């Protein structure tokens, strides 16, 4: 017996291996997250974006405990103070602390960005789904509306809408979303068009699934990647449009501060207080940059061939 074992070992036959433990394969989202984590640029963008969000959310705490000031505390004896130890980003024409105001304004600008994305996804996704799934006349009608809306220069329409309705920040976000859902709708429509022809959709239909069930159970989950990348771009576009409109004086109205209307206000003091121009613009830039890079990385992590 021992000889046999020895012989077996000599020719490389060993005791039977323990049974393979089958690990559950990681899910789609887990895989995406894994790929995203390996990309250094995306992760840096993610940290930057989270940092900006946390800083603006914590604005009241930072103002009270770190800077020991208030966004509306005026000090006319100390107006136009350049950046320095007391006021890291200087003060404005009323002696208000620029950093505190930039952080508070960030709450408004970011909230508008997120809401714009929410509104345009809530409109664009269902409209695109319906257009792509049903096709025919429905598709033609939706396309006609999209054509009309896409051919009006966006900023002109925004200007008209904002003088017509004089919106508050929430209303402004809704308006920007209302004129910005077409891109999402077209994208979702295209994806739906190709997904609706897949075999599993036919199979579901044969099994008696309703249209609604097919749309929500079989097509919508496949759009998660495209829609989440699109959401990133929508947030960034929302922030850019809000800042442009407020910069013209037609968006968020003072006393509510947003990055855009801080820039509008800074126009009168370009020589006396250049830091009032620099700070809000830099925040817009960093925020939009981090979102773009993150959305790009997310797209690559989901599927490098994705066209968004």
């Amino acid at each position, binding site marked *: 017996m021992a000889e046999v074992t020895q012989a077996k070992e000599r020719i490389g036959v060993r005791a039977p291996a323990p049974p393979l433990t089958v690990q559950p394969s990681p899910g789609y989202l887990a895989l995406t997250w894994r790929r995203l984590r390996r990309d250094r640029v995306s992760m840096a963008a993610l940290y930057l974006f989270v940092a900006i969000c946390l800083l603006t959310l914590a604005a009241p705490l930072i103002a009270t405990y770190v800077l020991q000031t208030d966004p509306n505390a005026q000090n006319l004896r100390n107006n136009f103070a350049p950046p320095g130890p007391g006021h890291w980003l200087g003060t404005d024409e009323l002696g208000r602390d620029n950093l505190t105001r930039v952080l508070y304004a960030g709450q408004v600008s970011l909230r508008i960005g997120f809401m714009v994305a929410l509104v345009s996804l809530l409109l664009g996704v269902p409209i695109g789904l319906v257009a792509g799934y049903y096709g025919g006349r429905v598709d033609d009608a939706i396309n006609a509306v999209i054509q009309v809306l896409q051919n009006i220069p966006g900023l*002109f329409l925004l200007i008209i809408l904002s003088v017509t309705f004089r919106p508050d920040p929430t209303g402004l976000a809704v308006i920007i979303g209302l004129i910005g859902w077409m891109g999402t709708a077209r994208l979702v429509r295209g994806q739906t068009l190709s997904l609706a022809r897949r075999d599993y959709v036919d199979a579901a239909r044969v099994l008696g699934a309703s249209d609604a069930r097919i749309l929500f159970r079989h097509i919508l989950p496949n759009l998660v990647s495209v829609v989440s990348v699109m959401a990133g771009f929508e947030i960034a576009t929302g922030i850019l449009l809000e800042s*442009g409109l407020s910069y013209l004086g037609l968006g968020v109205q003072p006393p509510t501060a947003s990055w855009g209307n801080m820039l509008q206000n800074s126009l009168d003091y*370009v020589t006396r207080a250049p830091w009032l121009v*620099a700070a809000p613009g830099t925040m817009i*830039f960093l925020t939009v940059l981090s979102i773009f890079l993150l959305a790009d990385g997310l797209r690559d992590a989901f599927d490098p061939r994705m066209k968004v």
Partner: protein
Amino acid sequence: MLRFVIRRLIQSVFILLGVSMLSFALMHAAPGGLTTLYANPRIPAATIERLEEQFGLRDPIPVQYLKWLSNVLQLNFGYSLIDQRPVVDKIAERLPATIQLSLASILLGLLGIPLGVYAAMHRGSWIDNTVRVFTVIGNAVPHWWLGLMILVLSANTIRIFPLGGMYTPGNDTLLDRLWHLLLPATIGAMGGWITYSRYIRSEVLEVLGQDFVRTARAKGLSERLVMGRHVLRNALIPVVTIMGGTLAALVSGSVLFESTFSWPGIGRMAVAAAFQRDYPVLMALNMLGATLVILGNLLADIAYGWVDPRVRYD
């Protein structure tokens, strides 16, 4: 081809009709304008009635729209609510400045094409990487803010650029005008640089990987011939389609750029009209902007079929 052009033309007319209905409806929902007269008790009812009669405000809205439309078709956009001058005259006064700035921006923007070609040919070189970083940053930074920062710099240090306007009063020379045009046109061209360079780069890279390029190289053509005859010819075709899009971006951008650089064009006029609630002017500018965008897209579509014989419509 002719059939396609005619069909696209008809389609464009319908889109324009849609735009006009939408903006007319919006204007009608807008507060201010003549309707504010109702709120003023000092104006006698008879005057209000007379004004309403005069401006046709008593008609049903669809009738008002058709009346307005028939006027517009005769290029009569009504009168400004602020100074009672014909809207067409007011716009015609401002249009040359906008055309000058836009044309300069479009032409400067075309520099993005060689940039993209170069980046693709030298993939991975420092120039390619610089172009890519520039594209990412340029996409995220609001261009008008960048212009504003450069203005702030020139205001506080050396006068590299004038602080706005089209010319120095009292020194209206060609050189002075060019000096004033340089910064706004460069900022306006940034959109073109970013779009073109990124688009052309990926387009050239794609064509470089095609079989016919390998064949051309294999049969011993010089690199210049391969690039000129085979790669660029194919890679540059889709450019015409994105030119329409850059025009649309420029129409919207003109509002921000003209406000930043105190450029006396129609973009700044639109902002002023918005503040004054001068609805006839706003309407006319909106229609003008939409017409430009639609025309740009139409021309791009036609040009695409013209430069690429493989494209067959219908």
